[in-house]
C-alpha cells in the first residue's frame, strides 16, 4: 500500500465551494431578472439571451480549442458573461447584435488576456461598449414592454432619458421599480436585481461594499444636484442600468479590487463617474463607462489599500 499514499503538503481538506459553484450562484441570482425580461418583452428577449449565452460559451470553447488550452466552459463564467451582455441589450436588438457582442466580450474582453481571472475589464461591458460605439442606433432603440417589434415600431424614451429631456412626462416611479419601462432587458426590474444581489451577499459570493457604496454615492449626488428631491434621486437609483451595473457588473471579481478598502473606493469612484456622465454629458446613462474606467483603476486602488498585516502598526504592544 505504501507507494500508493498521497503525500501532498497541507492543508489536506478544503471547502466545498468551487469556481463552478460560485458562478452557478451568480447565475441563480440573475435568473429572476432574466425571466422578468422575458415576461416584459416576450419571446424576443429569450432569443437575445440565448444567442448571447450560446455565443459566449461557444467562443470560449473555440478559442481554447484553437490555442490548445484546457476547455473551461464548465466553470460557467462564460454563461454569466453572455447573460450579462444579453441583459445589456434592448429588446429590439437584431439577432446579430448579441452574437457580435458576446464574441467580442469573450474573445477580446477575456481570452486575449488569459481567460478567467485575468481580464482587467469586465468582458460583458467591453462587449457592450464595442456595440454602443459601433451600432449606436440599434443599441438605443428602446421599446415599451409588451411591444411587438416590427419595422414600424417607434422608439420610446427611458426614464433617465426623459429625466434629461422632458422631466414632466417621465414614467411613474412604481413602474420604474418593477420594470415596466423601456430599457435594456436587464436594467428594467430593479427589485428582482436587488433580490439577486441580496442572495449573493447572503451566500458570501459578493461583498456588500461595492454595490452599497456605488448606489449610495449615486443617491447622494442625485440629492445634492437636485435640491434634495427624493423623487429624482429614486429615478437615478432605479431608473437606469445602475442596479444591474452596481450589483452584477462592477462586482466582477477579475476587474474589481480584492481589498476591502479598495472595494469602497472603487464603489464611490464608480458612483461619481456615473453621475458626472448623467448630469454633465450628452448621454443619459453613464454606468458602462464609469465601471470600465474604475476597472482600469483597480490595480492602482489595490496597491494603496492593502489590508493591515497582523502585528504591524496601530497595534497595542
Amino acid at each position, binding site marked *: *500500500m*505504501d*507507494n*500508493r*499514499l*498521497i*503525500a*501532498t*503538503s*497541507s*492543508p*489536506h*481538506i*478544503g*471547502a466545498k*465551494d*468551487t*469556481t463552478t*459553484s*460560485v458562478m452557478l450562484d451568480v447565475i441563480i441570482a440573475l435568473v429572476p431578472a432574466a425571466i422578468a425580461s422575458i415576461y416584459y418583452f416576450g419571446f424576443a428577449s429569450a432569443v437575445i439571451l440565448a444567442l448571447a449565452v450560446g455565443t459566449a460559451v461557444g467562443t470560449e470553447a473555440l478559442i481554447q480549442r484553437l490555442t490548445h488550452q484546457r476547455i*473551461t466552459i464548465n*466553470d460557467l*463564467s462564460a454563461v454569466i458573461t453572455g447573460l450579462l451582455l444579453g441583459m445589456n441589450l434592448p429588446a429590439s436588438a437584431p439577432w446579430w447584435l448579441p452574437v457580435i457582442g458576446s464574441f467580442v466580450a469573450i474573445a477580446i474582453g477575456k481570452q486575449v488576456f*488569459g*481567460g*478567467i*481571472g*485575468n481580464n482587467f475589464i469586465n468582458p460583458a461591458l467591453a462587449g457592450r461598449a464595442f456595440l454602443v460605439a459601433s451600432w449606436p442606433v440599434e443599441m438605443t432603440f428602446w421599446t415599451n414592454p409588451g411591444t411587438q417589434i416590427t419595422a414600424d415600431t417607434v422608439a420610446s424614451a427611458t426614464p433617465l432619458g426623459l429625466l434629461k429631456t422632458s422631466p414632466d412626462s417621465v414614467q411613474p416611479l412604481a413602474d420604474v421599480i418593477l420594470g415596466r419601462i423601456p430599457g435594456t432587458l436587464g436594467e428594467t426590474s430593479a427589485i428582482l436585481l436587488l433580490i439577486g444581489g441580496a442572495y449573493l451577499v447572503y451566500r458570501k*459570493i459578493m*461583498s456588500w461594499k461595492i454595490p452599497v457604496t456605488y448606489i449610495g454615492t449615486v443617491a447622494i449626488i442625485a440629492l445634492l444636484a437636485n435640491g434634495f428631491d427624493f423623487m429624482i434621486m429614486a429615478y437615478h437609483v432605479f431608473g437606469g442600468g445602475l442596479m444591474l451595473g452596481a450589483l452584477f457588473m462592477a462586482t466582477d*471579481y*477579475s476587474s474589481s479590487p*480584492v*481589498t*476591502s478598502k479598495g472595494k469602497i473606493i472603487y464603489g464611490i469612484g464608480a458612483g461619481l463617474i456615473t453621475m458626472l456622465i448623467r448630469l454633465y454629458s450628452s448621454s443619459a446613462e453613464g454606468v458602462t463607462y464609469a465601471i470600465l474606467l474604475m476597472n482600469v483603476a483597480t490595480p492602482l486602488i489595490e496597491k494603496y489599500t*492593502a*489590508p*493591515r*498585516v*497582523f*502585528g*504591524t502598526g496601530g*497595534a*497595542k*504592544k
Partner: protein
Amino acid sequence: MNKTALTFRGGIHPPHHKELTEHKPIENTPVPEEVVIPLLQHIGAPCEPTVKVGDRVEVGQVIGESEGFVSAPVHASVSGTVKKIENRPCPVGRRVRSVVIATDGKQTIHQSVKPPKSVNLMDPDEIKRIVRKGGLAGMGGAAFPTHVKLSPPEDKSIDMVIINGAECEPYLTSDYRMMVEMPEKVVAGTKVVMKALGVVKAVIGIENNKPQAIKTLTEAVKDERGISVAELETKYPQGGEKSLIYAVTRREVPSGGLPMDVGIVVQNIGTVVAISQLFETGMPLVERVVTVTGSAVKEPKNLMVKIGTSFKDVIAYCGGYSEEPGKLINGGPMMGIAQYTDEVPVIKGTSGILVMNKQDAIIPEPTNCIRCGKCIDYCPCGLQPLMISKNSLLGRFEEAELYHAMDCIECGTCSFVCPSKRPLVDSIRVAKIEITKKKKKS
C-alpha cells in the same frame, strides 16, 4: 454559540469531525516489539546518540543529547537493546538519524528516573534545567524546546502564561481528553510554568465546542490564585499562537516577533501535562497522547503511545485500516504532514494520526485564480495570499516579501477557502524558504 467568546479577525469553520473520538477515554497501548526514536524531534540542533548498538537501555534513559541550547535530549521509551542507529523515515518529512530499540517487554525504569524535590523549593533556573533534562518540546506539533520558551531574554518581561487548549485542528481530541481526564495535571504543569517564568497570571484558553473541558477546568482552577479559564470562539486557527494571544489579551505579536515580545509565553496542554508528570515522577517525555482517527481506520481512538512506536503498530491496535488508505497524516488535516509510509514513528509532536480513505484524499485540480478575494477575507494574518502566491509562482520572491510573505503562519486557511483550489499556502511556503535563503546568503 456564546457571543462573548474571545476570538481574532479572519479564520474559518471547517467541519471538525471530533465526534469520532471525543468521547473515547485515553487507552494505554501495548509496548511494541521495536521502537524507532529519531534523534531530532524538535526545532533546533539534532542530538548525538549516547548509546551504542548492542547497549541495553531502560525506560527514561537518555539515548541522545546535544550541546546546543535550542535542543532537547531524547530518551528511551522502552527497555530493551539498541539494534541499530541509522537514518529512518521520520514524520517531519525527511529521514532522520534514529535509535532503533528491540524491546524486552519488561519496561524496567532507568535508575536516573527519580522524583525531584518539591517544585516549591526550586528556583526558576533549577526548574528550567529539569525541563530541559526531561526532553520537553512543544507537543502541539511544532515541537519547540520547552526550556527555551521558559528562558526569555532579560529585556523581555513576561506577565502572563497562556495554556493552549484551543485544539482548533479538526479531528484531534488528544488535548481535549487530557483536559477532561487529568485536569489536576494541567493545573500542576501550569503552576510549574508560572513559577519558572515568575508570573502570577495564567489563562487556559479553550474553544467553546468543548464545554466539558471548560467546565472541568473551571472547576479545577477555582481555588487556584491567578489561573483562569477563557472561553474561545470555535474557529480555526484559534490555537495558532498569535491568534490565541490576540483573542485572550488583544495584544498583537509584532510582525517578525515572538509571543515574548508582548509579554506572553504559550504552552500546549500536552506539554503542561508532560511537565506535571516530569515533576511528579521524574519521568522524562517518553510517551504522549495521540488521536488516531479518520475515515480509513477501523476504530478511532485516543491512545497513550510510547514515543518511537510506528504508525503501523498504532493503527493495528485500532483494528487496522477499514479500507485502503489514501493519505496518512502526522497531525491534523489543516497543518499536518502527509506520510508516504506507515513505518514512521510517533514523535514528541505527533498529536494525531489521521488516516483518510482514497475518496477523502483526492486532490482537486487547481484552476485559474478568479480573484474572489476569499483568501484575503479569511487570512488571520491580514495578508493577501493571492498576491504572494502569484509572485512566488513567477519566482518574484522580492515582491512576495513586500506582500509580507514572512508573516504567514502557514495555517492553510487560504488554500482551504479557495474555490479555484489553488495551492496558495504551498507557494507561500516556497517564497518563505527562498526569502530566508537569500537573507542567509547576504
